């Protein structure tokens, strides 16, 4: 008799108060572990395989990248060469293209030179606004 009169005072439901905590924990986990892979880089359009275009020497700025990182700069017609660092390429380009807007940069890299040397030069040229760039290997 006493059992029927006394109501259960203790609830028999699973407490759901911590549900929000767990949800936020999972959310924060995903927020912090998500990595976005960005598509970025230096773009260039290669010439097609059969294309060879005749260009007069005076419109070419030769940039020969050697293994040690020093770049030989040779202007189309004159035989004299300048030895420069990659950081000077941007200003050289700007000066030369101001005099000849049809200037093409011919970048020849030595076969054993590390790739980043070519990227440094390509970076300098594109920062200076060059869009006529030819990438070749030094034979």
């Amino acid at each position: 008799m006493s059992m029927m009169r006394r109501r259960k005072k203790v609830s028999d439901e699973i407490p759901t108060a911590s549900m929000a905590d767990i949800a936020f924990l999972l959310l924060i986990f995903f927020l912090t572990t998500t990595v976005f892979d960005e598509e970025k880089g230096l773009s260039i359009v290669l010439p097609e395989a059969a294309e060879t275009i005749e260009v007069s020497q005076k419109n070419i700025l030769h940039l020969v990248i050697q293994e040690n990182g020093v770049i030989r700069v040779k202007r189309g017609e004159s035989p004299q060469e300048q030895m420069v660092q990659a950081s000077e390429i941007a200003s050289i380009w700007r000066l030369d293209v101001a005099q000849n807007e049809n200037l093409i940069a011919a970048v020849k890299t030595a076969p054993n030179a590390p790739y980043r040397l070519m990227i440094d030069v390509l970076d300098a040229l594109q920062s200076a606004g060059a869009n006529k760039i030819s990438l070749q290997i030094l034979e």
Partner: protein
Amino acid sequence: MQQGGFKRKSKAAMDIPTSSLADMAFLLLIFFMVSTTFPSERPRRMTYPSAEATEKLDAPRKDVLHLYLERDGRVFINDASVMMEEVNNVVGPLYAENRALIVQIRADEDVAYSYVDAIQKELQQANAVRVTFYTNLERRITRERR
């Protein structure tokens, strides 16, 4: 004497109901779970060169083909190792399907340039001429003053 202040304590609860907090949290969670895409290739550990002129590619993700070039000259496309001479045969059909394909060359910064040149020649043969060299953005904090 009544001064105008409340004499009776309000019986209604003054708390903002937090019962919908879990609903909001789950909604956000479901949104992220549904919108997260996992890259189909395994991430590779490589040191990429840095460049200031690095720009984001405007192309949609499906138009970009990742071509990995490791320091020893091994080429990987879509997680499969490809011999240098076969690059043309692998990229050719992919370019034929998608003429807007851009090949993103992800080369280690110290790889010998001869490998990069070989890749370029293979891509030219496959006619996939839109190429991007993957670089990290380099921010020069101090400008050299001359």
